[in-house]
């Protein structure tokens, strides 16, 4: 079949559709919705995955954690609670430090598959304490050892203003390791840690919200976190990361009271200035912790490992989403097949006439196949445009991305479905005995 003939077939199909607009729209609707849902699901899945990857890259890895519950905490913004844990806005590259993260539980249990132990690890793993911290500090390769105690959803009060914040008990190395700057005031010092002084640095958003859009006025004010009265000595620059921007950074020793009665740490972040030392640091950290815990009870990992695991998890999640979306595509395809079968019956006479004046079986087959193809392609195109429009709107409050691959897949799959489900009715039309077709009334 030459190009002109194919164009002619498409033109004929479009002419036919023009004469039955409502039916054409209804027929394509199935495919349209199918493509819409597949593209949207891909866009949302991909957007979320990329968003998390970005977060990991900027945050540092110990924040990894897929915690149960409120993933899309409104206050924290999208993905806010993913980073529960603590590590500030680390930009390792600019710092030149290489960070190793120690988490409770064996998160990367190989037998459980990717992501298998996420959650379980944290729930069932070790509760680190100050002994571990001191032991880790003795590792020669550990240029930084930053303990992390995190308590989120704590009501922070200043006079009448109340906001939810995250208590982050840590040490003085945190700003340097995670590369965040103090916008006004200062961070607490070693002596604050020694004296368990109640001095804190606030995340920018928290300071801004508590102090009526003038975060710099927070300095030297006393805020209330639970039962504790804390003095603000610094405000951290805005990082764009809800976790840090809502944080209350406090000497870890100070938390050893009403905030952290068990005197535990959620995690440790270890840094080494020389990249070559990362493996040695990991080995040493493991050896140190194995003296107290089982292999199952903690995880020593790097940002890249966690990132790749998260990517793996999301690849699977996306595949599942696409599979679910595909069901509607198949339903749409069956809709097309159904209508095409009806159309073949309805147009039996036409088939007979065309056969009588010289159409071959192939001509008839192509005529109906082209119609199915054009129907599903158009449906796919409209679905795609709608998905694009929805993504543009959704982007304002949820990460979503449409990529070229998704677009091409959607269009080729919808056309493919048109061909697949169009073949059967088209074949029936082609095989109609001409004489019966022409006598059909």
């Amino acid at each position, binding site marked *: 079949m030459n190009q002109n003939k194919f164009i002619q077939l498409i033109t004929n199909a479009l002419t036919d559709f023009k*004469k039955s607009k409502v039916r054409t729209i209804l027929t394509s609707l199935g495919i349209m919705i199918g493509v819409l849902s597949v593209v949207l699901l891909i866009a949302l899945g991909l957007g979320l995955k990329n968003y998390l990857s970005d977060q990991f890259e900027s945050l540092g890895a110990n924040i990894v954690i897929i915690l149960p519950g409120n993933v899309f905490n409104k206050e924290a913004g999208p993905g806010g609670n993913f980073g529960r844990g603590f590590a500030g806005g680390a930009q390792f590259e600019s710092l030149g430090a290489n960070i190793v993260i120690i988490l409770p539980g064996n998160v990367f249990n190989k037998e459980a598959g990717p992501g298998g132990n996420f959650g379980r690890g944290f729930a069932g793993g070790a509760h680190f304490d100050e002994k571990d911290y001191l032991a880790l500090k003795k590792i020669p390769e550990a240029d930084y050892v930053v303990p992390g105690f995190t308590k989120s959803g704590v009501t922070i009060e200043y006079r009448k203003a109340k906001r939810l914040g995250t208590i982050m008990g840590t040490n003085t190395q945190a700003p340097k390791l995670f590369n965040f700057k103090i916008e006004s005031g200062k961070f607490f010092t070693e002596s604050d840690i020694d004296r368990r002084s109640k001095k804190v640095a606030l995340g920018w958003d928290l300071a801004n919200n508590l102090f009526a859009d003038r975060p710099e006025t927070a300095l030297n004010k006393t805020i209330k976190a639970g039962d504790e009265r804390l003095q603000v000595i610094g405000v951290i620059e805005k990082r764009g990361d809800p976790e840090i921007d809502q944080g209350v950074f406090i000497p870890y020793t100070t938390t050893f009271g009403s905030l952290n009665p068990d005197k535990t740490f959620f995690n440790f972040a270890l840094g080494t200035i020389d990249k070559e030392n990362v493996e040695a640091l990991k080995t040493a950290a493991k050896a140190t912790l194995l003296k107290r815990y089982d292999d199952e009870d903690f995880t020593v990992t790097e940002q890249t490992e966690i990132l790749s695991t998260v990517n793996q998890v999301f690849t699977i999640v996306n595949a599942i989403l696409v599979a679910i979306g595909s069901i509607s595509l198949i339903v749409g395809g069956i809709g097309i097949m159904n209508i095409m079968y009806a159309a073949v019956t309805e147009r039996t006479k*036409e088939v007979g006439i065309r056969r009588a004046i010289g*159409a071959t079986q192939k001509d008839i087959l192509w005529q109906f196949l082209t119609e199915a193809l054009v129907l599903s392609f158009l449906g796919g195109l409209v679905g795609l445009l709608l998905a694009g429009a929805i993504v543009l709107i959704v982007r304002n409050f949820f990460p979503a991305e449409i990529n070229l691959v998704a677009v091409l897949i959607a269009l080729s799959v919808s056309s493919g479905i048109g061909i697949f489900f169009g073949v059967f009715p088209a074949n029936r039309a082609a095989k109609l005995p001409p004489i019966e077709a022409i006598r059909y009334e």
Partner: protein
Amino acid sequence: MRQPIIELSKVSKTYYLGETKVKAVDNVSLKIMPNEYLSILGSSGSGKSTLMYLIGLLESATFGKIYLNGQDISRMSDDKLSSLRNQTIGFVFQSFNLLNKLTVLENVMLPAAYLKSKANFDVKAKTMDLLNRFGLKDRQNFYPNKISGGQQQRVAIARALILNPKIILADEPTGNLDSRTGPEILKLIEDLRREFKTTIVMVTHEKDIAKRAQKRVYIKDGRVVKKYL
């Protein structure tokens, strides 16, 4: 001796209607010469239409052979048969069989869409020529259901003629027309035969119409009989 354009040799056609075997055409032998005007006369259900469709390559014989220009059509592929229908045979039906979603002009040009190679003449010009001649020029952009029966049949005849067929097969061409238009259409077909040297096979149940042909074949219960009724 001249070769018949169509030859049927002991042709039978059997249908099954459920369990019942129906012999629509029974052992018919027939020779149709080029430019001949043949009528097939028979009552309703006599098998005359089946016979015409066998001649028109729309139907294959259960037994016997059909030759078109000396060639055995039973060995031909669907593509070949379609191509022969396209270029050698023009059909005129009782119920016109135009496509209502196409205009008069598009209907007449439709057979050219199924040519396997480009036509060696200007199809559009020929269409206009035929429409002009049949007094349908001002109807070219009308849809068939918006014109009269006589006009529709003239469109169908124009469609049958567009690719210069050797044979016109007409199945009760006046059956749906009134007593004034019917004879006009018959005359048109007969004039075309003289002008284009086509062979005409006309199926009818009306003696008066059959009489107009050079040669008549009477069909009863699927068999050729000597005398009609």
